[in-house]
């Protein structure tokens, strides 16, 4: 063993580890540090930006450039829209994925594998394709609105008076139902995006549920619904919360779905970052400050999820 340090193979291994460590530290940490550093930079009119140490970008994010004379919460509002869309979509996805996954975990191993292939394939499908699919389905000249019109459903809605309600919700124009642009379409597409993730994340917890517990409850005469309510749900409360949090964090950064389906005044931080860093605004420092705020929100949620996980694993 004492010759190990002279062994060329051990030396090689050590060198390889050092290279790997450096590589990972540089590539996983440096990008985030750069975003942080540039968020204190300053935009130069007519040019790009320069290094600086100013909190002006953060001030602009919270209260606007003209503070204290004038206050605007425009950018905080963008963050709140990020939260709003992500929250509703993640809760909806988890609630609808739960019964599905519960049934899935009770199937035979081969059937489970087949379903998982299907789920994984739709999970890996790019956001771009999914948005394209829903865009065709929801756009006014094809898809659902056309279906509504041709089947007479629109006319029926008008006859019973629900059409006005849809108009109040912004889901219809005077002639027909419309889903673009609407909160409904945004949330629907976002839930669709993370739905397979919800299944994958709930699957371990649900497939490890002890069947003897619910069997015991059944022999004692509990009905199916009672078992779900008193045995199953309490034992998966924490994974359920943890999954919702993870999906929420994932959805905070959604870009394509929001640009296509959300109304222009309801654009989120992710869209703002994009247009500042790469788009028409060309204000990388402010985009970086927004990215940092998004990162802080996401990290906080991930930390909460981590605490929940720890609590779940504790006996």
């Amino acid at each position: 063993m004492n010759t190990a340090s002279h062994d060329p193979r051990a030396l090689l291994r050590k060198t390889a580890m050092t290279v790997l460590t450096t590589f990972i530290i540089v590539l996983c940490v440096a990008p985030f540090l750069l975003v942080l550093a540039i968020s204190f930079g300053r935009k130069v009119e007519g040019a790009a930006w320069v290094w600086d140490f100013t909190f002006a970008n953060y001030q602009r994010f919270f209260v606007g450039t003209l503070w204290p004379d004038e206050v605007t919460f425009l950018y905080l509002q963008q963050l709140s829209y990020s939260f709003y869309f992500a929250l509703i979509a993640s809760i909806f996805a988890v609630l609808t994925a739960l019964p599905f996954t519960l049934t899935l975990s009770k199937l035979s191993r081969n059937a489970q594998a087949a379903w998982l292939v299907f789920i994984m394939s739709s999970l890996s499908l790019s956001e771009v394709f999914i948005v394209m699919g829903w865009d065709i389905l929801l756009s006014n000249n094809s898809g659902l609105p056309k279906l509504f019109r041709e089947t007479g459903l629109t006319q029926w809605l008008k006859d019973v008076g629900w059409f006005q309600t849809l108009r109040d919700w912004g889901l219809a124009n005077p002639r027909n139902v419309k889903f673009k642009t609407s909160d409904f379409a945004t949330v629907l597409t976002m839930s669709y995006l993370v739905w397979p993730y919800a299944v994958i994340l709930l699957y371990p917890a649900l497939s490890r549920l002890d069947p003897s517990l619910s069997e015991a409850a059944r022999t004692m005469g509990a009905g199916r619904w009672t078992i779900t309510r008193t045995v199953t749900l309490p034992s998966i409360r924490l994974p359920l919360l943890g999954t919702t949090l993870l999906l929420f964090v994932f959805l905070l950064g959604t870009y394509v779905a929001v640009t296509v389906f959300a109304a222009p005044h309801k654009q989120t931080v992710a869209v703002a970052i994009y247009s500042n860093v790469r788009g028409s605004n060309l204000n990388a420092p402010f985009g970086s400050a927004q990215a940092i705020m998004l990162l802080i929100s996401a990290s906080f949620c991930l930390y909460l999820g981590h605490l929940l996980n720890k609590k779940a694993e504790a006996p």
Partner: protein
Amino acid sequence: MRIGSMIYMWLSALVLAMPIFVVCAAALNSGRSMFFPPREPTLARFKEFFISEPIWTEALMNSIIVAFGAASLAVLMAWPIAYMLWSSGSKLSKILAGLGSMPFAVPPIVFGVGLGFFWAFTGGLGEMWAGIISHAVLLMALPIVTISIGLQSIDRSHLNAAATMGATDQVAFRTVVLPQTIPYSISGFFFVLVLSFNEFIVIFFVSASSYATVTLQIFNSLRNGYTPTMAVAAITFLSVSIIVFAAVARWGDLPRLMGADPTRK
């Protein structure tokens, strides 16, 4: 009630398949714009995508290069980390695994913006190799997880038996550890491959419009409206995913990789 939950399951599958089905059907359109149901169904778009339109063939080639490069690099980086985690559980290995998973855990747009700056300073912006490295780092978390699961399935008594029979560490590594983890490494490779194929936001920031993968090309054309050729891309990508995951399910243990209880059949 049992029937009720099965119906719900198939209904969910139907909704899940609906937009995918619509995109696929749109590929059969003969005209320049998308209609559903397709008008005058034809397979001409497939020829455009794979053979005759250089925009798409180049994008497809770029996607393939980036995905295979990133998958290989990610597995190469993940292997030592997962092995160290398993064999020594040292602090360094935990830090590396944590850092390696970080880009995957935070919103990708933040990491994408950061990498955009990073490559701008190091001269990699718009270079294909930078795109490969970026995807490898972003998705490294997946092979770390799959390889760790594989290593955990090794029976430590086999290693002890090998040692008592006089096998050196290297021999035991080659004859016990490596064969057991190969299916899991391959699964990790394929996970990265498929996700890299479909990834959009990070590659957008690091490519700086100097080259385009298929997802980027589709996003660029989004403003001009959809063309049926894009739908062919969607079909191709979906087929690749299904083949890959079916292969993982066939030769690996997909339910176990997804965290099912290994003792129950």
